[in-house]
């Protein structure tokens, strides 16, 4: 492993100051489950690691039907999955957390680390995007609340400015009549990067779909929404024919690439299958 300088600041001010002054070679260390592997395998050149574990106020989870969900930057995937109420209120996020890597990695990896890594295949992003989550950030010039759907600008890239730190995620409370699902597709059952990940969140009233949000992972430079497919669902009773055409529409709205994991054609085809299955899963829960 290449050598790097290790910093352990005590406040957000210090973290921000270090990131600004140290420049491009400085990275935040939280769980480190991805970063350290990248350093070891020389996929990322790191000169400085800024460890945020000593910064107060970055942990803690609140989760309730009334207030929704909020968790801090140091919250691990394992901790969040085990939090009371999460599996009931956000089964899509719960499934995504449980699909992430392995138990050992989940006990170390932070959810916000998974998000800020900005991989299009990150498991936790599609369900959070589909549920309208926002990310809270801190910067000496002022804090921001950014809708997660607008956070990513490309693979590994986000709208975070130099010296800006993601501090928390908030998710609105689930509305009555709303349902959600996330399906991950990979070759293995654990320790797997999604070939495709599809999250579907639907609001219904009296059996009619009033709003639909479909988020597609690993089929574009960022996690994508499929607005036209969503539009096909809204106002319907989500009958099989409608669901099939929405799934077909979602296939047209993604922009997958071919690589060693899969061909673009296969990914596109899976967007169709998984979108349909995710809606079906939602309908089964609703019924």
């Amino acid at each position, binding site marked *: 492993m*290449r050598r790097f300088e290790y910093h352990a600041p005590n406040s957000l001010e210090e973290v921000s100051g270090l990131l600004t002054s140290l420049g491009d070679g400085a990275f935040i260390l939280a769980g480190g489950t991805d970063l350290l592997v990248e350093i070891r395998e020389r996929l990322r050149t790191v000169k400085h690691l800024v460890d945020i574990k000593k910064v107060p106020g970055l942990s803690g989870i609140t989760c309730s039907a009334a207030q929704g969900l909020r968790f801090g930057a140091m919250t691990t995937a394992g901790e969040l999955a085990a939090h009371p109420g999460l599996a009931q209120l956000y089964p899509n996020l719960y499934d995504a957390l449980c699909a992430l890597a392995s138990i050992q990695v989940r006990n170390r990896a932070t959810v916000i680390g998974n998000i800020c890594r900005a991989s299009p295949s990150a498991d936790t992003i599609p369900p959070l995007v589909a549920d309208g989550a926002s990310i809270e950030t801190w910067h000496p010039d002022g804090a921001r609340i950014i809708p997660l759907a607008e956070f990513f600008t490309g693979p590994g890239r986000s709208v975070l400015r130099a010296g800006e730190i993601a501090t928390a995620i908030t998710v609105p409370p689930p509305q009555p009549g709303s349902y959600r699902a996330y399906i991950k597709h990979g*070759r*293995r059952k654990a320790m797997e990067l999604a070939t495709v990940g599809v999250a579907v969140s639907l609001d219904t009233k009296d059996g009619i779909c009033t709003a639909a949000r479909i988020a597609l992972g690993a089929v574009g430079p960022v996690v994508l929404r499929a607005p036209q497919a969503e539009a096909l669902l809204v106002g319907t009773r989500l009958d099989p024919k409608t669901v099939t055409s929405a799934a077909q529409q979602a296939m047209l709205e993604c922009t997958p690439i071919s690589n*060693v*994991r899969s061909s673009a054609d296969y990914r596109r085809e899976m967007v169709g299958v998984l979108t349909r299955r995710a809606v079906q899963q939602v309908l089964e829960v609703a019924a």
Partner: protein
Amino acid sequence: MTKQDFRIVGKSVKRDDVIEKVTGEGKYTGDYHMPGMLFGKIKRSEIAHAKIKSIDVSKALAYPGVKAVLTHHDVPRVLHYGSPHPRSASCTKDQYILDDRVRFWGEGVAAVAATSEEIADEALDLIEVEYEPLPGVYDIDTAQLPDAPLIHDVGPGGNLVIPPVHVERGDVDKGFAEADLILEGEFAGGRPTPTYMEPNVCVADWDGSNKLTFWTSTQTSFMVRGALAEVLGLPLNKVRVLVDHMGGGFGAKQDLFQHEFLCALLAKKCRRPVKMEFTRRETFVAGRSRHPFKLWLKQGFRKDGTLVAREMKVVFESGAYGSHSPGVTNVGTASATSLYRCDNVRLNGRAVYTNTPIAGAYRGYGVVQTYYALDIQMDEAAEKLGIDPAEMRLRNAVREGDIAPSGHPIIGHGLESCISHGVEAFNWAAKKGAPDRLVAGRPSARKGYGIGCEMHGSSAYPGIKEQGNATVKMNEDGSITLLTGAAGLGTGAHTALAQIVAEELGVTFSSVSVVHGDTDVVPWDIGAFASHTTYMVGTAAKMAAAELRARVLVRAAEKLQEKAENLEMVDGIITVTGKPGTSLTILEAMGPSRGIPAEHLIATGSYMPTKSYSFGAHFVEVEVDTETGIIECKKVMPVHDVGKIIHPIAAQGQVEGGVQQGIGHTLTENYVIDTSNGRSLNAGLVDYKMPLSMDMPDIETVLLEAAPDPGGPWGAKGIGEDPIIAIGPAIANAVYDAIGVRFHHYPITPEDVLNGLRAKQKDGANAGL
């Protein structure tokens, strides 16, 4: 073989290394640290085929902490084998430690020793190499073109590693003329790698007498000693190779690797110990994979299913160097004489160089590839002839007296026993006869059942005339020490050897300890490979124990004033037949007394085996998702005949591990090389997909003692390689049973499944017109 009452053999005694392994106290090569030790790293080429025009190490040498840099200018230029088997049938010398030319992307071009691993790694970037690119060859077909660029100027010509292997028996043309059904097909396989847990690692240290001590993770310590001594110009007693615990090898750690020479040379140059340890990435680019292959198979059958003719042509892709290609080509080609008996066979095997990473030895050694084809085509024939696939195999199964690939007669009816036993235990007929292939609760899934068979030899005879040796000592307190050169890859081989010694000698298992892995101390050994350790070294250990036992009984007979043939020894207690109450402990018989030292008791067994064959039949249930193309292996029943089971849990462990690797080969594992430039596309565990615990099916292993072989201890035969062979075709055949799509290659990806289903639908639609 006639012994009936076993006290230790056949029982799952506690392995002697269990505690040190679970507590982490077991010492692996990577655990060795020495004062003043340096760390070595290898600069690897970033081009697949090129001449090195110049190489400038001045900046690296000037980097603080760097102690030495070696290039092709600084190392002995000795042409050597990759696979160091002595006098092996047909090895090609085609490697230099460092050459002025690179032949694959990732080949070492220079080596650095520095005071830390980090500094050595950083210094690699400071080495400037100027290449003159050469046209490359990245696949089997291109390598065989008449105008293909040549990768070596040694060898029989073209890009052939060895002259083609030709095996012919009977009259093939006559056989085909008598056939009612002739099937012909092309098959191919990817590039699985063994992915052992412990990356390659070695530590080299020279003493003041110019003697090299070399710790390394190897299956073949004496081969490492031999090749190091030969290339470095040293007598064998000036090279001491040590290996204690190993984190797996699966065959690949039989080669003498480039880094092993370089580590020794760096240590010599610096006069300090040097450690070199592969990263996981290096275990891919600089490790050894299974040989990718292409195969054409044509077979003729009579209406009753009898095989009457077989013709096969196979080409193995060796990568940039020959390594084990001679062995793999010979064994893989010859293996197709058998499994399913056929009097008329014509087989042709080739190995070709390409500018890709080196293929070497890997569990199943060429047989995985050829039997994949044989067993899939057997299924196709069964269907065409309307015969149940298991019945079809039973009719053709190799049996007592048939001539084995090695040229000598098969002993017993092992394969037939495995098939018959599995048909019953798996409930084959009922499962295959089920009216549909639907899966409850999964409308898009289909289930299917498949069978695959295998046989595999213990020992590399006749390619290599092997020799197993053992020394058994009795200490003056009656405890026993077994000295063996057999490596412990993690299989439990040393436990099995200790069981054999204890059983034969008549002492308790706990009174036997094993010393291994030091070439200056233990008897010579060819290495742990070819499924032969229990079979061959086990026999040598049994011979040594028998001699020791005889000497103990002679001494005891004197003390008891009885005839030695009337004495029995069990658990270290010597008794007289028919005289209850008269007994001696081993210590009383042999120990020191009244100032007289104990008798010096040491016995040696040396055994040169021919070969035995183990057999297996795997029964598999799969589920195929027809929308995603994902194949899940749900249940496997591997039935293996091993002649005599020495340690049931260890044998079962071998089977389960083989099944896991075989599932990986067939469904997910493939080390992919970009065929436009020779670069690795997934040299790491993120994108090289081994099945993990959650992907594993329910495995119900059945071990049979159906066909004991007189060449092994009490009839025992090998089990190391067998379990990886039959699982592949069993899965492919089960997939066909589930969805009606035939695959002739591995791995079978989800995308292949969907494309196959589409093609089938199209064919169906066309047929409907």
